[in-house]
């Protein structure tokens, strides 16, 4: 596209130390079905370009939705002017960028059936059928099916000579049944958090069976007992739940921009500071976390990040010890790293990219262990499925999580359903208390497509994964 060349030539002639342009069209299809009423069926298209200019150790970023030669050149000029203004408030000589070479490449999310080319009726028919299934249960007062499909089409060029052509997309079906009974209401949700695939995945999920299951479980949940008093108990957490736990307590804690204090004003900083690299015991010896933007069907998998750095796989926590961070070209040199791990991503064309959590997962246990054996080996505990309430401090140390469905475990058996369960823990106590992880047969990926971070706020996406795991001696109790 000619605008890539116009922008790069303008940046060079104006004297930019480095510049890139990201032309991006983001298309989002949303279908929201509430109690058989289609509350929103929409397609949103955001089309434009953002230009980053690096000058004298500082960034300027300007964006526009007007596609003309003059406007592209004017946007580059504006970005340069802003970079010069930024340089008036820099520390020392300012930022430096990690080394990188040029690439000419393309990437496509592997999609068999593109939801954007599928007739709307086919999608809505399935959604109505699923909704009817949930509404057919007496006591279910609210049935929701939310289907989100998203596609990003990007062209990227940098003054390093890189030219990228990247199309990524994901789909995320979510169904919720809410039961009302004797003055209480409780919900149960099926949501795998989105995956970088097409409609074929939705048809493989067996959503009618899931609808029946969650409606039945919502009715069980609303009538279930609560735990009341908080006590030290054993927790067994399913992979979906662990996806959120690791996102909050490991993923955000190991973003290098937070470690450096760049998010101090809003999203927060991190306790996992650089002097802890290689020596801080973050978890038990069983705990291995991998950052992997090469993960097949991963939401952060895109071939390259928005710095033009190729996707990579690396250990963030190895044998329980903090090993490395997720980094970008401007954060990596701050702790002496020569190269970025390729974690710089923007939500849409009008966002300056920021340091993001990569696809991040907990490796499965090496010894054969099934979930049934894990529960069978637990005398007294609580088994939590799915995601619920979550809250963590701005240093990523102390947290409280709920869940979506709970079972009390007694003498190796699921003894009774529970509701309103909460647990409180902190780093490194929580991951240090992990004493068993099921094997790779039970490892499952779960996505996050609404990770809020930054000022102005951006919404990021990444995939997490785990096998069911057990944690000892955690404070577990009920809400008020």
């Amino acid at each position: 596209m000619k605008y890539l060349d116009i922008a790069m030539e303008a940046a060079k002639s104006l004297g930019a130390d480095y510049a890139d342009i990201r032309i991006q069209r983001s298309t989002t299809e949303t279908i929201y079905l509430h109690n058989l009423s289609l509350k929103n069926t929409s397609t949103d298209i955001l089309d434009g370009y953002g230009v980053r200019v690096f000058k004298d150790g500082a960034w300027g970023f300007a964006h526009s939705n007007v596609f003309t030669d003059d406007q592209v050149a004017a946007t580059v000029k504006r970005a340069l002017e802003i970079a010069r203004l930024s340089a008036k408030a820099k520390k020392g000589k300012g930022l430096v960028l990690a080394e990188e070479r040029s690439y000419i490449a393309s990437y496509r999310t592997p999609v068999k059936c593109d939801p954007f080319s599928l007739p709307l009726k086919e999608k809505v028919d399935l959604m109505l059928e699923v909704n009817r299934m949930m509404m057919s249960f007496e006591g279910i007062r609210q049935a929701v099916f939310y289907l989100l499909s998203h596609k990003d089409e990007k062209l990227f060029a940098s003054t390093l000579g890189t030219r990228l052509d990247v199309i990524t997309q994901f789909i995320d079906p979510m169904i919720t049944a809410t039961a009302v009974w004797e003055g209480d209401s409780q919900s149960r949700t099926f949501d795998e958090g989105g995956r970088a695939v097409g409609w074929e995945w939705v048809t493989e999920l067996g959503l009618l069976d899931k609808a029946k299951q969650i409606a039945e479980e919502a009715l069980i949940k609303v009538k279930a007992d609560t735990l009341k008093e908080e006590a030290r108990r054993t927790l067994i957490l399913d992979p979906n739940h662990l996806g959120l736990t690791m996102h909050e307590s490991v993923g955000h804690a190991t973003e290098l921009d937070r470690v450096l204090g760049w998010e101090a004003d809003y999203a927060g900083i991190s306790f996992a500071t650089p002097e802890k690299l290689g020596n801080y015991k973050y978890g038990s010896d069983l705990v291995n976390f991998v950052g992997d933007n090469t993960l097949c069907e991963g939401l952060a998998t895109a071939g390259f990040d928005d710095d033009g750095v190729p996707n990579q796989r690396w250990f963030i926590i190895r044998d329980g010890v903090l090993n490395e961070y997720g980094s970008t070209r401007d954060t990596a040199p701050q702790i002496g790293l020569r190269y970025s791990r390729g974690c710089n991503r923007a939500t849409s064309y009008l966002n300056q990219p920021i340091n993001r959590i990569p696809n991040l997962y907990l490796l499965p246990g090496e010894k054969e262990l099934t979930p049934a054996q894990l529960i069978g080996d637990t005398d007294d505990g609580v088994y939590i499925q799915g995601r619920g309430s979550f809250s963590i401090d701005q240093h990523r140390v102390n947290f409280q999580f709920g869940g979506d469905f709970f079972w009390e475990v007694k003498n190796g058996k699921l003894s009774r359903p529970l509701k309103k369960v909460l647990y409180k823990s902190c780093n490194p106590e929580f991951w240090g208390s992990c004493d068993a992880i099921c094997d790779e047969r039970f490892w499952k990926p779960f996505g996050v497509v609404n990770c809020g971070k930054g000022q102005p706020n951006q919404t990021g996406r990444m995939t997490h994964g785990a096998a069911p795991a057990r944690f000892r001696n955690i404070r577990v109790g009920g809400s008020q």
Partner: protein
Amino acid sequence: MKSKYEKIAEFVKKHVKADDYSLRIAARSSHETRFAQNAITQHIAGDNVDIDLEVAFGNKTGRCSINQTDNEALTQLIKRAEEMAAINEPDPEYVESAGAAAYPELANASPATLALAPKQMVEIIRQSIANGEKLGATVSGMTEKHFMQIHASTKNGFSGYHELSEFGHSMTLKKEHIETKVSFSSKDFGTFKLEEEIAQLNGQFQSLSDPQPFTAGKVPVIIRPDALMEFYWFMLWMMNRRQSDEGLTAFTDQIGKKFMGEKFSLLSTLKDKELVTAPFSWDNVVSEETYWVRDGVVETMPTPRYWAKLKNLKPAAPFNVFIPGGKATEEEMMKLVPRGLIVNRFWYIRPVDMKTGELTGMTRDGVLYFEDGKVKHAVNNLRFNEIPHDTTRRLLALGESVLTDSSVKLPAVLVDNFNFVDTTSF
């Protein structure tokens, strides 16, 4: 610029074939400068427009939005929305678009904000950093200005336009264990006084110098306005008329009842000139002076147009938040209880249980312990599990209402027996 949006509206009106439509155009021009650890880290400028069209054939709807304004793009916008509606399933809860209505003329855009130059914004940051460096601390924050133009029109004759501006500046000061923050947000840059913000920030910073451990429990707490905004925002979010009527929230069957404490009122107001006040909602409900809660009695709740039609109610949407305050100063509040805490801000508030309205969250940016009417020392951060509507029944005193966000004005309050359930490790 207004005429540009009128032209788009004319084009849509002329070319839409559907039985009904609602058009909303939101244009935004922004300049946003982030700084952290005493240096600018991000610096963003640009304009964008969102053109959102919903159409209906009978009760079959389709919606599309784009950010391109040429006729070809607008033609595609209409085509996509109409194609979607034509093949969609009927929506039994569809409500026709709003008809012609008069809406209040409000001054939401400030000339001082519009005139603010990027150079001035950088100078504000340089002075903020200089203050941090003088204290041997780091300062992080964001300085931003926005100008927005909103146009709305419908097939049934609603037509509206309004403009608004916003200026914001925040500063988080950090030195070793001390972290504290101030933030300013208003439609009018002319009311911003950096020296006052810095004085407040430095005052908070000094007060946090000697933290002592504090054990969680039920304790009287002075919740400063920024913290109260975060806490009560979730309560307003849960006050949905339909969800309450369906038995899903704590507000079920509470209309007309003294469900909250009598010291507590909550309204959206057209009368306060400092507040940004949208004259009509995203669904074209015209803003009217509305008490959601008056002296503890729940008078009404935000009510979507479909639910209003079904239940023969008036549709209502919150367009700003105003909690009338009292006259108590912090010093006077401290004398009303033997001991307690003062909270600057809350952080990461999330619902724990929708039916009871219970929330969890933590303190952030400074907690102070007071005893015998005087601040004694800072304490560690704490986690709470609390029910906001329940805390209105435990209000002991209210301070003067102040602007915490361009569309939010509320007081500091003294709440008895606030339920802290855990301490954090810093």
